[in-house]
């Protein structure tokens, strides 16, 4: 009782500031004593203190077992302490974790929701693959818990379970999907959260959920959910540009209407993503870009630094595709460069990339150079450095007009101490010197100065990346040594003993290029009679090289000793007065041209060449000595080196040689002997883009000391002025030749050959990647990424070997939806097998099998197993299983395509009965062509909603149709047409039926309409709650004014009430959560509670709104009557034939019937109409007779037997509620009387 508690511990630590460690170690000793006691309260107290010490950095893993003990206490207080400690210090390799499985399972099923909650929270932190596998099913059950508090936690933790145990994803997914429409906003938000997280990593598997998310996006008012969904759409649009088109409108509306900055920002971000995915210039989207840029400008101008930061961040995304729209805000961005906040400066830097032009490049870089001088932290300075180089070198130095200036900038940058980007500067120097021929002389002079002052750069070689530039300097001086003013001086600089302290690869370049310089020196001396300089050079080598010969670096050593021997030999010759210069220079003759890094890969395989095919028939292949490549080949493959092959005769060899030459001549990347053959590539795109500066002789080429780039800014200005003057004089052609002498080889004959390689580079840079080299996710992904395992096709139907391990029987749950049903079955069929290692192994094998094979045979086999297991499990409560056997054979093959084409359908712009017509009339339309007037989707939004609806229904229907497997094939054809058709034909909107397309149908019917606004609505039962229906109302603005402050109100009846938020009175209206710009429509959903559902009902209501014109605004109102039909209480529920039969036999149902005369439509149309308008599903269809089933939200069964003969249709019906049945039949009759 007098033990220290947590507070005492904290206090104690605070009072022992000087000897904290000592104090804590005594405390730990005490804790160890406490843990040895039997009293759980003492233990819990000890564990609580350990949790605190863990935060201070003490390892407490030794107490893991005690933590488990405390976790298993029956008291919530201690349990919570235990789980908290576990969540803080358990991890995958904690071995006691495996002891917790049963305890956690017990807590998960505890009647106390907080026990469950605490267990879930703890588990979310330390779940391991074993725990995930063993508990997945328990958690899945909790996803349907009655308490939303548990549901939301269970939903969230599923993500962790998926990560650790990817096999659980497919079985759990249907239920997760269902939770997207959970009545509790917290659960819904959790489900959105999990799916977004999953989809972010593997977006393509979740494309089929787009319609559902679209619906959520247009109906949800929870900003957290909206943000997540909108972010998700941002990830999905790159995969499906059509989705983007659909999104633009609602997102634009949100941007206009929302007051939440966070939401606004995410909307803008996603609109940008959409615009990027649609970048193929849709003219009408420029408005969207403008809107985004405008909104971002507002953010950037805001005084809140956070908004400023985010604004810049988003702006940089627009920049990539629409640089023009960003450029107009240059002022603002340059202003941000001076911001005191480094994060903001960095973001502004990103944007600068797109801001530059030929005109302002120098000015901007000058500004950046000032920042470089001022920058304190190396990170920011390095960032500046890379940005300067990025900006200057972008698109092949497009914006650089004066390369001398650029070289001086690069040289100035070498003065940065401690930068990591020496190699970057070096590669720029090399690149410019090689590709811009005119600049070489200047570059060489600068590099020579650099080499001379090398000691300035190499102050601290160890950590100084800047010495990399010496690599470039040495190479440039060596390679282009003919431009050197004083080669001897440079040679001397390159052979200084200090060079030996440089990194090996740089020394190697020094040695090699010193040799090049030597050749130049010799050549320079050739003409003169005085040979002392040449002999001095030889002597210099002989004196200095031995130092390099001793180098530990192999490369340096080898080069140095070669060159040393060479020079010694030359010295001998020199002493004999032999002319050697010519021969020495021959060593370095020819130009080294740059080769693009990927050039080799890019070589296209010539048509007709199969690289895998044998070049010759393997047995007859000979090992001929004169064919060098072949000999190498033969050595590598010993089995070909057997000398039993016949000799290939001379003629054949000659022919082959000829063929090879031909091929080489056609190969752009083969290095050819004759320069003439290179002409083919001289007019590659982009060559003209490389501006080459004709060096103006007025500019002093040699700047004493290190150059100052500022000088060039001035000089460049003068030059430009002069040029402008010249431009007037000279004719265009000549000027062009002057400015781009290198690029336009057709004007400058002799130069052209050297120009080819850079041009080549340009060619490659802009070249598209071969098809199979597209940047795929796999390339970028770390193989250890856990998300890789979650790349699972979720649309495939569930195989029975994918069931989650189940520990015990679970009570059968009512089927809710077809997909759900499958899961349910899957989980139930599995007999108890938890924990059995064998089985697990077997299961894995099966999994693997499943992945590999898709043959029907396999599936049938599973079916059999399925059945057996079912019998074993003895779960007769679910009679559905047997009948499933037949239906599922057909299902797997179709459902994937069905999903895909559903999405296609939703995405395509196919006209769908828009709500401009009353649903009744639409339904009455017998010919598809009647929809022609609707086919211009003036309100894409509206059609969006419509399509979503119909596709949803269609999906259900398809499920049913699968049972009629004989029509499978025909349906397939339809699907293909849907996906291929691309959009405009009105046939497309016909639902997927066999034989002939159905006329379009819509369940939205007119609610009320006046000159301002039109409302159409649809009522759907709520699956989760038997007393709720959801009324979706689409509001369409018909006038040219802005509609706002819409309030929706109905007069409640005793039976039906509009659900209003807590705290509002029974007569208060509901605010519609959006505003309507002209011509726009949007959907809102209202929840009603109903008590009795057996009678149809009408509720009177009013919509009030404000019409806002430019100068005035008026209050308007519109009355309406909301008609709750009995049909709207029915929910499409699939039913299998044997269950149906049992239901009919049970005798609980009362019957009724109705006859329809003069129905003039194909039978399948009739069925489709009943399905669509009255929420039935087909159980079985035999010729002209079909049984159908539906269920009300209060679980009344409604069974129909529909028969047709001629134009008469008779419907016999049974239902456990006669009034309901009568009303439903009346409504069916009503539907068909309108035909």
């Amino acid at each position: 009782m007098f033990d220290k508690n947590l507070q005492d511990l904290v206090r104690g630590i605070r009072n022992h500031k000087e000897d904290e460690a000592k104090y804590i170690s005594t405390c730990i000793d005490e804790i160890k004593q406490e843990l040895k006691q039997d009293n759980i309260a003492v233990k819990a107290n000890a564990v609580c203190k350990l949790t605190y010490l863990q935060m201070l950095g003490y390892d407490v893993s030794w107490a893991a077992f005690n933590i488990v003990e405390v976790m298993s206490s029956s008291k919530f207080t201690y349990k919570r302490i235990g789980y908290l400690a576990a969540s803080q210090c358990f991890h995958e390799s904690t071995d006691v974790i495996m002891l917790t499985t049963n305890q956690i399972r017990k807590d998960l099923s505890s009647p106390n929701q907080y026990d469950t909650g605490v267990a879930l929270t703890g588990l979310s932190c330390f779940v391991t693959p074993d725990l995930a596998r063993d508990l997945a099913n328990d958690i899945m059950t909790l996803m349907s818990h009655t308490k939303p508090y548990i549901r939301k936690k269970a939903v969230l933790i599923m993500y962790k379970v998926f990560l650790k145990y990817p096999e659980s994803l497919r079985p759990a997914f249907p239920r997760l999907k269902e939770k997207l429409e959970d009545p509790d906003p917290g659960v819904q938000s959790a489900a959105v959260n999990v799916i977004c997280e999953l989809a972010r990593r593997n977006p393509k598997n979740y494309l089929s959920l787009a319609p559902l998310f679209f619906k959520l996006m247009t109906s949800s008012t929870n900003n957290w959910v909206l943000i997540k969904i909108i972010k998700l759409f941002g990830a999905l649009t790159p995969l499906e540009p059509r989705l983007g088109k659909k999104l633009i409108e609602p997102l634009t509306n949100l941007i206009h209407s929302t007051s939440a900055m966070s939401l606004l920002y995410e909307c803008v971000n996603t609109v940008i993503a959409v615009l990027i995915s649609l970048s193929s210039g849709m003219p009408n989207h420029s408005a969207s870009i403008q809107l985004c840029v405008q909104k971002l400008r507002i953010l950037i101008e805001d005084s809140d630094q956070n908004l400023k930061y985010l604004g810049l961040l988003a702006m940089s995304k627009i920049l990539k595709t629409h640089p023009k729209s960003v450029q107009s805000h240059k002022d603002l961005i340059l202003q941000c460069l001076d911001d005191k906040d480094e994060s903001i400066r960095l973001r502004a830097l990103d944007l600068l990339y797109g801001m530059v032009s030929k005109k302002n490049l120098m000015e901007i870089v000058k500004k950046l150079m000032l920042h470089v001088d001022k920058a304190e932290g190396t990170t920011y300075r390095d960032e500046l450095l890379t940005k300067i180089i990025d900006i200057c070198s972008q698109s092949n130095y497009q914006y650089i007009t004066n390369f001398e200036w650029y070289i001086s900038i690069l040289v100035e940058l070498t003065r940065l101490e401690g930068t990591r980007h020496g190699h970057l500067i070096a590669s720029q120097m090399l690149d410019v010197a090689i590709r811009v021929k005119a600049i070489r002389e200047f570059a060489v002079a600068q590099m020579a100065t650099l080499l001379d002052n090398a000691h300035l750069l190499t102050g601290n070689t160890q950590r100084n990346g800047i010495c990399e530039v010496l690599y470039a300097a040495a190479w440039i001086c060596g390679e282009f040594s003919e431009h050197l003013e004083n080669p001897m001086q440079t040679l001397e600089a390159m052979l200084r003993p200090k060079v030996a302290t440089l990194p090996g690869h740089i020394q190697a370049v020094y040695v090699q290029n010193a040799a090049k310089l030597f050749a130049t020196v010799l050549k320079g001396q050739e003409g003169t009679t005085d040979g002392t300089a040449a002999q001095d050079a030889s002597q210099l080598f002989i004196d200095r090289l031995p130092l390099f010969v001793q180098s530990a670096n192999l490369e340096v050593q080898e080069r140095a000793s070669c060159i040393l021997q060479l020079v010694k030999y030359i010295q001998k010759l020199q002493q004999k007065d032999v002319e050697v210069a010519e021969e020495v220079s021959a060593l370095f003759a020819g130009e080294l041209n740059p080769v693009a890094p990927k050039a080799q890969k890019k070589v296209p395989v010539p048509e007709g060449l199969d690289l895998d095919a044998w070049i010759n028939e393997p047995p007859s292949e000979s090992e001929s000595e004169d064919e060098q490549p072949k000999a190498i080949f033969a050595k590598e493959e010993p089995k070909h080196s057997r000398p039993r092959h016949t000799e290939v005769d001379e003629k054949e060899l000659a022919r082959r040689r000829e063929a090879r030459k031909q091929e080489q001549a056609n190969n752009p990347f083969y290095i050819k002997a004759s320069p003439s053959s290179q002409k083919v590539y001289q007019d590659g795109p982009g060559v003209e883009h490389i501006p080459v500066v004709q060096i103006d002789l007025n500019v002093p080429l040699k700047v004493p000391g290190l150059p100052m780039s500022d000088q060039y800014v001035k000089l460049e200005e003068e030059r430009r002025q002069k040029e402008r003057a010249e431009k007037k004089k000279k004719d265009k052609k000549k000027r062009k030749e002057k400015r781009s002498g290198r690029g336009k080889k057709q004007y400058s004959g002799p130069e052209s050959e050297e120009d080819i390689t850079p041009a080549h580079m340009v060619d490659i840079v802009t070249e598209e990647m071969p098809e199979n080299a597209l940047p795929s996710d796999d390339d970028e992904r770390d193989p250890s990424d856990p998300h890789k395992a979650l790349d699972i096709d979720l649309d495939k139907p569930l195989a029975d070997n994918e069931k989650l391990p189940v520990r015990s029987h679970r009570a059968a749950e009512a089927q809710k939806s077809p997909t759900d049903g499958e899961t349910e079955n899957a989980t139930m069929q599995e007999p108890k097998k938890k924990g059995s290692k064998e089985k697990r192994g077997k299961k894995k094998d099966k999994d693997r099998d499943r992945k590999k094979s898709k043959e029907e045979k396999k599936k049938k086999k599973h079916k059999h197993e399925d059945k057996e297991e079912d019998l074993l499990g003895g779960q007769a409560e679910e009679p559905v299983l047997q009948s499933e056997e037949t239906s599922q054979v057909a299902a797997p093959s179709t459902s994937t395509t069905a999903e895909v084409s559903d999405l296609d359908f939703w995405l395509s712009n196919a006209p769908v009965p828009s709500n401009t017509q009353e649903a009744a009339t639409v339904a009455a339309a017998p010919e598809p062509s009647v929809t022609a007037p609707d086919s211009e989707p003036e309100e894409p939004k509206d059609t969006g909603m419509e399509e979503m609806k119909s596709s949803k229904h269609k999906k259900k229907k398809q499920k049913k149709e699968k049972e009629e497997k004989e029509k499978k094939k025909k349906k397939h054809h339809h699907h293909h047409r849907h996906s291929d058709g691309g959009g405009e034909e009105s046939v497309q909107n016909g639902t997927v039926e066999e034989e002939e397309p159905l006329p379009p149908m819509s369940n939205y019917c007119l609610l009320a309409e006046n000159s301002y606004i039109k409302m159409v609505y649809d009522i759907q039962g709520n699956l989760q709650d038997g007393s709720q229906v959801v009324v979706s109302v689409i509001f369409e603005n018909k006038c040219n004014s802005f509609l706002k402050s819409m309030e929706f109100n109905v007069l409640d009846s005793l039976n039906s009430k509009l659900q209003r938020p807590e705290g509002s009175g029974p007569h208060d209206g509901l605010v519609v959560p959006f505003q309507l710009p002209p011509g726009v429509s949007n959907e809102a959903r209202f929840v009603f509670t109903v008590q009795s559902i057996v009678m149809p009902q009408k509720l009177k209501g009013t919509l009030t709104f404000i019409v806002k014109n430019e100068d005035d605004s008026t209050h308007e109102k519109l009355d309406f009557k909301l008609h709750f039909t009995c049909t709207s209480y029915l929910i499409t529920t699939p039913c299998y034939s044997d269950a149906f039969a049992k239901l009919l036999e049970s005798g609980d149902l009362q019957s009724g019937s109705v006859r329809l005369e003069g129905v003039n439509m194909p039978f399948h149309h009739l069925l489709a109409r009943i399905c669509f308008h009255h929420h039935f599903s087909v159980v079985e269809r035999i010729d002209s007779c079909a049984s159908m089933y539906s269920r009300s939200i209060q679980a009344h069964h409604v069974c129909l037997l529909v028969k047709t003969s001629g134009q008469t249709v008779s419907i016999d019906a049974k239902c456990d509620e006669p009034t309901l049945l009568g009303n439903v039949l009346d409504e069916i009759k009503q539907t068909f009387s309108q035909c």
Partner: protein
Amino acid sequence: MIKAILIFNNHGKPRLSKFYEHYNEDTEQQIIRETFHLVSKRDENVCNFLEGGLLIGGSDYKLIYRHYATLYFVFCVDSSESELGILDLIQVFVETLDKCFENVCELDLIFHVDKVHHILAEMVMGGMVLETNMNEIITQVDAQNKMEKSEAGIAGAPARAVSAVKNMNLPEMPKNINIGDISIKVPNLPSFK
């Protein structure tokens, strides 16, 4: 996803650390130090986002923080979270603490880190945002505290008396503690709800 939630004071002393990914204790301490180093050198009126440190995260991660009087609240999140949303979440967190502790100050966090953990557990679970509605969070936390109290019952009374006596014996307690009120009203809060 949220990778870590850290609370430390102006001197870098950890007041709460919650990692949603496992690191060993030493790395955790390093991360706290590094984060403190990054965050503390920033001025008051600069933006609240920070490219992640080297130890935690990488390019996809951001540190989003708020500074209240003596305490820094830092969330390390990846790109799937909305930056402004997280800022708002921090605000909700602090307001919730304020409600639960009645004018929360650093001392409350020092002595009741377990309670802070329990409150946080109702908001963020396994790195994912669980609940953002303050009333809902408080309801759940209160209900659990009530349960704890009822369990303590009579058995808990002596212990409570003991701790009351202990507190009485320490009149110097506030002396060596820097109490700063955590000001809850933060201007420029982007409207979220």
